[in-house]
């Protein structure tokens, strides 16, 4: 099994998902099944195969102009779970963890 219960806890933390302890074993098994299957790629000869970077890449850059997609602030906030006076409201951001 290529994924341990601790791996599952670690990636769940990274992905901001919480997994009940009684489900961790099962999740580990399901993920491992796919990853073990993915291991078959090692049989593939990838000599001289650069990683695909997919976008076709011939699209032009944007000129430095304003466009019509700008939203009025009421519209921008319309779908917000909680908003007031033009701001989105969130639970208190206690310490600045912004890298």
């Amino acid at each position, binding site marked *: 099994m290529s994924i341990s219960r601790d791996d599952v806890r670690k990636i769940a933390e990274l992905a901001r998902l919480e997994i009940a302890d009684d489900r961790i074993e099962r*999740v580990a098994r399901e993920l491992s099944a*796919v990853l073990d299957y993915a291991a078959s790629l090692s049989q593939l000869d990838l000599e001289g*195969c650069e*990683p695909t970077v997919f976008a076709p890449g011939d699209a032009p850059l944007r000129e430095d102009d304003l466009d019509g997609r700008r939203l009025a602030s009421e519209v921008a906030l319309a*779908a917000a779970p909680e908003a007031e006076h033009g701001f989105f409201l969130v639970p208190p951001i206690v310490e600045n963890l912004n890298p």
Partner: protein
Amino acid sequence: MSAAKEAWRLSAATLAAGVGAGDLSAAEAVASGWEGPAARWEADVHAVAHTDAAARAAGAAMAQAAGAKGALQGVPVLVKDNLCTTDYPTTCASRVLAGYRPPYDATVIRRLREAGAVVIGKGNMDEFAMGSSTEHSCYGPTRNPFDLERVPGGSSGGPAAAVAYGLCPLGLGSDTGGSVRQPAAFCGVFGLKPTYGRMSRYGLVAFGSSLDQVGIFARHAGDVATAYSALAGPDPFDATTRRTPAPDVSRWEHGVRGLRFGWPANLWREGVEPEIVEGLEEAAASLERAGAQRVPFDFMPGGFAVATYYLVATAEASSNLARFDGVRYGFRHADSPDVRSLYTRTRSAGFGPEVQRRILLGTYALSAGYYDAYYLTAQRARTRIRREYQAAFARCDFMLLPATPTLPFRLGEKTEDPLAMYLSDIFTIGANLAGIPGLTVPAGMTPGNGRPPLPRAVQLLGPDDSEPVLLAAGRALEVHGDETRLGRRHETEFAWPMKR
């Protein structure tokens, strides 16, 4: 008036001509689908996730008022619930987007409206397009109109089923690993996944950005061509669209005389149901009758593509779905005293198990220490796979192969075994990895023998921008098919009452 009532039977092209000529109104065109087929079947099939009469009426009025003779004048279209629309919610069949109404239309939606089409609602789907059966929807499953015990395929099961049972002649889905071609096969309709970069993704809620393409469902090859011409082409809001104009598919009736089609028989030597292989043989025969030439060769087994796909698609998904956090839109967990719990509780309660499974897998594939082993290797394998296709297309103009290894399977049959579910995309995934176009073509019905007859289908794959060839071949199969099998069209199919 009865002409208007029967309008749902018409092809999109005929309907548009009728509305354009004033024979019937856009509103009547829309109504015929709801009062006819939908009244009989929607409650059982459950193809539609969101709609409302007022929005449909407004859409029809807009199309009528436009008055322009758009190529899709007055044509009703059901679009997958992951395409942003201002007049219906857009939720990706997920609790995390419950009730969300986007403030903008996806580019393809805008182009639909500009062509005179009427968006009649949002099609059901697997949550965030993650699935092959439309069972993973927060609105409950969609059922296969040909056998309600069976799935319509997925993830775009809603639009596929709706086009199949006659709600509308056109549907839009999205195809990341086969999510248009596989349900098209299970529902017996045409399903096109265009060349990557030909259909704008602006306003398509992203799953696997480098794999996603908006796809088209229709009951006639010609309607796929008409819709493709109206929707495909460069979009300044999507930097992954190609700069050049989309290929011209207007000669879809041109035929296949002189074309070579690849026949990679090694792919269905095992693990493919006999009815499907039968359908392939018949399709190959019809193509030959129509003047095409068969080029047999072996092709890389699909297993590698599946392995590659589930690393690339989940990695991109884990990133694309990070934005669903309960801050700016959608669902927020009521008990979120701090930012950390806002995220974990909102996401854990908002995403279904399959979505969470794939987010975890993708997060793992990208996380420190595993990136090279998984994501990078997969992207290199992808280059190899694209080369395999290029080599094949040096020998033929397009390939004929199954769309799916099995006929429509039963509800619940694969939900417990993710890997088995993933393997049902084994014939479709390669095209997304390589960025090439693919077309599912109906191949008639299985002989019932006691149980309801089920749709069969074949798949055509071609090199970049080969949509014209694929549609010409699809059309050839539509008319040159064996009348008793391939040629069965919807008049007969719709004749069966919903017997199980």
